């Protein structure tokens, strides 16, 4: 399927060929342990230093020692939140949002069982937060605020720099899961009040299984993994040197391609979105279209189900993803769609197209051509649909037992 059209870049991205090339030596001749005193280790140690600086540059961090390599985005999220709780045992409250990634949400649900109080900020129909609600919740009981920069499903952006300032003036630590934002938006941490930030390599054309926790110098910290002195004792375990080198290269490339995100990639996304919306009735963009990632477009197709759409797209070599219940094996559609109060008949039919700078206009045009007949085919099967539109008063005309 390597000839297919990949529009699922918020799930994971292709590893750039340049990144692969940089990594290769670290699987063969460059096998030294960076902590060792000899030349084998020294070379790897230098490569890690360079990678750390490449990450630092992309994030606009003040010091390279603020970069801690982790095994993934999830580990960075867990480390940040658990560290804040352990370092401030008197503070038992957490502020987060209802639309976080499970990497934060499941941890918070678990922490509630352990006796912590979690405040989940709600979102409106466009996925936006209520800043007044947030300000009211900030207090000296709060150990940490953890809010994602960009939503993985809708692409909606939260006002992270402002929220970090507010937390800072209330004396509360601030963490952001920026896994979807890094590489797609310019970030300048040294001029922000953000204390901690998580990123994940595989969302920006580096390999899977490598992440970073940015930790502002001076922020109180307790490691998740204790052991050796790697990462200055803040994350023990011999470094995944090949992946770290790959992540460094990917960050360097993302920085130099940053302008493309809001020009080329955004233009492709808009073309796709317009192409679909102008041809298909009864569908709409979810989230906050005026304030979202340049690569993401999430469209809810009413009266049909997302997994069925994905299977038919896949048959044509097109990869996307959906917030329907069936794609995840759960019984509820995506918590993000539900939080925005998208009706069930549309939430199950939401499809996310997420692009990258490796997509072409030809890709997008093929998708614009493929989507309308797929939607039409499935609507023909739907009990809510008849002819060219939904049946009259669809929720009443078809009201199955135990709906």
């Amino acid at each position, binding site marked *: 399927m390597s000839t297919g059209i990949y529009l699922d870049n918020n799930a994971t991205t292709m590893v750039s060929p340049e990144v692969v090339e940089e990594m290769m030596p670290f699987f063969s001749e460059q096998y030294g342990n960076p902590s060792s005193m000899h030349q084998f280790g020294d070379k790897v140690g230098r490569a890690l230093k360079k990678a750390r600086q490449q990450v630092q540059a992309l994030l606009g961090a003040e010091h390279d020692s603020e970069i801690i390599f982790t095994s993934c985005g999830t580990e960075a999220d867990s480390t940040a939140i658990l560290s804040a709780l352990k370092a401030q045992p008197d503070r038992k409250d957490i502020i987060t949002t209802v639309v976080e990634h499970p990497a934060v949400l499941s941890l918070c649900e678990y922490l509630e069982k352990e006796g912590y109080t979690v405040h989940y900020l709600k979102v409106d129909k466009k996925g936006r937060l209520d800043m007044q609600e947030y300000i009211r919740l900030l207090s000296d009981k709060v150990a940490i605020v953890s809010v994602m920069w960009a939503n993985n499903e809708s692409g909606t952006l939260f006002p992270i720099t402002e929220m970090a300032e507010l937390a800072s003036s209330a004396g509360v630590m601030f963490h952001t899961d920026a896994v979807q934002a890094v590489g797609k938006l310019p970030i300048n941490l040294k001029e922000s009040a953000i204390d901690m930030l998580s990123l994940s390599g595989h969302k920006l054309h580096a390999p899977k299984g490598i992440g970073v926790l940015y930790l502002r110098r001076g922020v109180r910290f307790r490691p998740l993994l204790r052991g050796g002195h790697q990462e200055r004792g803040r994350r023990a375990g011999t470094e995944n040197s090949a992946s770290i080198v790959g992540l460094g290269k990917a960050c360097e490339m993302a920085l130099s391609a940053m302008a493309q995100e809001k020009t080329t990639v955004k233009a492709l996304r808009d073309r796709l979105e317009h192409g679909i919306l102008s041809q298909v009735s009864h569908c709409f963009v979810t989230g906050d279209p005026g304030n979202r990632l340049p690569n993401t477009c999430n469209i809810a197709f009413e*009266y*049909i*189900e*997302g*997994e*069925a759409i994905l*299977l*038919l797209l*896949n*048959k044509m070599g097109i990869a996307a993803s959906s917030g*329907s*219940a*069936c*794609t995840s*094996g*759960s*019984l*509820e*559609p995506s918590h993000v769609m539900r939080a925005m109060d998208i009706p*069930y*008949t549309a939430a*199950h039919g939401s499809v996310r197209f997420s692009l990258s700078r490796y997509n072409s206009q030809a890709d997008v045009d093929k998708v614009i051509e493929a989507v309308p007949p797929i939607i039409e085919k499935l609507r*023909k*099967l*739907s*009990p*809510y649909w008849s002819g060219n539109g939904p049946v009259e008063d669809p929720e009443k005309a*078809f*009201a*199955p*037992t*135990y*709906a």
Partner: protein
Amino acid sequence: MWDYSEKVQDHFYNPRNAGAIEGANGTGDVGSLSCGDALRLTLKVDPDSDKILDAGFQTFGCGSAIASSSALTEMIKGMTLDDALTVSNQDIADYLDGLPPEKMHCSVMGREALQAAVANYRGEEWKDDHEEGALVCKCFAIDEVMIEDTVRANNLSTVEEVTNYTKAGGGCSACHEGIEEILTRVLAEQGVAFDPNAKIDMPKATQPKLTNIQRMKRIEELLDEIRPNLQRDKGDVELVEVDGKNIYVNMVGACGGCQMASVTLGGIQQHLAEGLGEFIQVMPSQELARQAGA
């Protein structure tokens, strides 16, 4: 990506009998919008022969919901209503060469639509008595509601008991944390705290260890003790095989297809376990065939 069989894919990509049929005289609407599946089944029944002349479906749902609907219509066309009603959700899944455990509820929906459509044709009212929860045990496709109900009905208090009664947690064991959470919740309703270290108090086997023959006889005696209960409901139970702690039985008569079969099995299991003074697991004999086939 789901591991869909070729058959499922075929019925999804090329659905048979899609759409409402002309002149239908039986309609069944079932489903659950929150879990993303809903189905309308229309039937054309010949009033003289009671045969299904034509069947059509409209489905709002995923790949396997569409495939199950399509399969169902193919299976029941030409059947009499009574024969069609014996089609079980397992039959639908088997017809499609199996469904992933997360997707078994799609085949349940097909069977319910059929019951609803037949009831509609006969002018009866159909009531759904089936509730569904989030899938907990992926190995044996056991959902939350099933575990909760079993815990309540049998006053269970340990994960091991839940496994013995429902099979949930008897495979890879990854869902044990989830089962503990359910136990914690249900026990809390009764004002009891869940104790992860609790041992099930089984009557200790005071008598000397039984020989295989004695044990088999004892099992038969114990089954005889509960037989009158089953016969009152026009059912019965046969002992098929004893393999260590696994005891395979055949539920016959009314007990065979009845909704309560799993609960009944649970009751038999408890009775045998207490009578033998050891852990045993009672399973339907179809399980033997399935294991042999696997």
